[in-house]
């Protein structure tokens, strides 16, 4: 006890006098700040400042071809009272929730197979690589590849007609909400597969064996052990997918034939007609939605604790 007190007192004294160790720690800290400074400056100037600018301009006065820095809430009022723009909020949320559900439903079994069922590490890695390879193709090319696949004279219709399953081709596959959802589900599902696989691969197999020895069926093992343990992966995947889908506009523009207008599409078309203040309002609303979605998702599990 006495000894501990003594050494404690000595430590305090040493700190007061700025011991060499303390000095070195200080110098290291300053050195670290210097190394981080370029990144901090870059992100502040080119990310934080533009974001502030969006919020600021959303309160500017919009004239026909220009914006004036006279503050007003006109753009906000017009946006929030127009059914077209309110619809785009609903569309964005609808597409987001459906694509999120689709990626989870499509991706989870794949993750289950790769992460949990296959124990051979080489095969595991190979399958993951096969899932990731499409990412080295341009995103826009992957989107446009759905056109000859879903079109009236596209691959799916040709195959179905040749097999004699249908007489007349489906015409609503392409240029519809469905096409946008299929396209996004394909492009983003790997972001769901990855994190879930990662969490599943960390599950200790002896836990599952213990449950089985104690007489639990697969259903019970899945709901009580596998799903809870993989939940952080689901949340991380959901954050990835949500952030990307909510900010999307290219897939909707290319596959819906301009029928589906998400908030991103509104921003693009408003900028195209030089309605900067209006585009900014849509931008701020999009930011708010994304912030709410991410904080809600992160509240489900404490990711920092789980990782």
């Amino acid at each position, binding site marked *: 006890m006495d000894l501990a007190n003594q050494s404690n007192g000595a430590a305090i004294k040493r700190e007061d006098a700025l011991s060499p160790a303390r000095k070195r720690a200080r110098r*290291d800290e300053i*050195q670290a700040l210097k190394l981080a400074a370029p990144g901090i400056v870059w992100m502040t100037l*080119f990310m934080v400042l533009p*974001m502030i600018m969006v919020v600021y301009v959303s309160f500017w006065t919009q004239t026909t071809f220009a914006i004036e820095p006279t503050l007003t809430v006109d753009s906000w009022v017009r946006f929030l009272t127009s059914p077209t723009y309110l619809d785009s909020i609903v569309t964005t949320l609808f597409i987001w929730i459906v694509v999120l559900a689709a990626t989870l439903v499509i991706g989870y079994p794949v993750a289950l*197979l790769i992460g949990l069922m296959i124990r051979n590490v080489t095969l595991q890695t190979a399958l993951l690589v096969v899932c990731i390879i499409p990412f080295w193709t*341009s995103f826009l090319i992957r989107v446009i590849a759905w056109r*000859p696949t879903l079109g009236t004279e596209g691959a799916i219709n040709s195959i179905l007609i040749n097999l004699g399953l249908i007489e007349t081709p489906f015409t609503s596959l392409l240029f519809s909400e469905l096409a946008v959802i299929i396209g996004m589900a394909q492009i983003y599902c790997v972001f769901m597969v990855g994190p879930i696989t990662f969490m599943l691969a960390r599950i200790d197999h002896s836990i599952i064996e213990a449950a089985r020895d104690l007489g639990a069926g*697969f259903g019970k093992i899945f709901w009580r052990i596998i799903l809870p343990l993989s939940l952080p992966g689901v949340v991380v995947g959901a954050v990835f997918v949500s952030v990307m889908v909510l900010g999307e506009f290219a897939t909707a523009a290319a596959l819906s034939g301009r029928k589906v207008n998400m908030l991103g599409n509104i921003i693009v078309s408003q900028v195209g007609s030089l309605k900067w203040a209006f585009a900014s309002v849509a931008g701020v609303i999009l930011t708010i939605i994304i912030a709410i979605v991410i904080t809600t998702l992160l509240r489900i599990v404490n990711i920092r604790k789980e990782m």
Partner: protein
Amino acid sequence: MESRLLKPALAVYLGLFLLFLYGPMIVMAILSFQGPTGGPQFPIVEWSTYWYQHLFGQISGSRVSQLPVGESLIRSLVLAVMTTIVSTVLGVMAAQAFRTRFAGSGPIFYLFVLGMIVPGVLVGLGMALLSNMLGIDRAWWSTSFVLHVVYTFPFAFLVMLAIFNRFDRSVEEASLSLGVSPAETFRRVTFPMIFPGVLSAMLFSFTLSYDEFSRTLFTSGPRLTLPLSIYGTFSVEIYPNVFAFGVLTTVFSFTLLAIYGLLMMRSVARNNQQYKGQET
């Protein structure tokens, strides 16, 4: 018993999943060999490499105008190289900084990571507004470039952070205590050890920037990058030359990936050899 049934079922499911993942690309690759009179759909009128020749401007008097890819390809490559260099340097520096706990490191971590989360269309809009207000001309090498780094820097940073986390500090300390200067220590000791990580960070930055589209849309000014040229073809009717182009860019990306793989293998092999040399 259930799991005995489950495994084959999941294997079949994986096959369907891969078909879902690769199907459209396969369809596109098949249709890129469409004949001159055929459209971007089935059936294939005749098999030919017409649209590939069309892409390289070897067909004159075609009803379809040539894809404006030549110059935009070069722009995209230059932009990707610029982005790769800057974001990798920034990423290595920032990750090196995060090896020491310093005041405010928590918020700064989130500031960095935010760059990969914020939708491109938002920062793009903000950057366009900012350059409008300041009277700066927007161009792919200025306003687009800084946004590309905002996006790729967090990836480089996280990759390097993961590398430094597994890093054996004692080797560095040995060098420093033998009187080698910090700069020389970094060049001769730290850098060779983190080099595989640096390569990964560079690969991330390059592919992300090369394919980046939403951040470029509002900020590139009149001269387009490659993804913007492709996007431009979406609004008009598409022809199989877009598919031929898609196949070629995919082949190009795989070549880059193969080069990366080779460099990585060589780096690992060389490291192993070095250690062997030191042992004897």
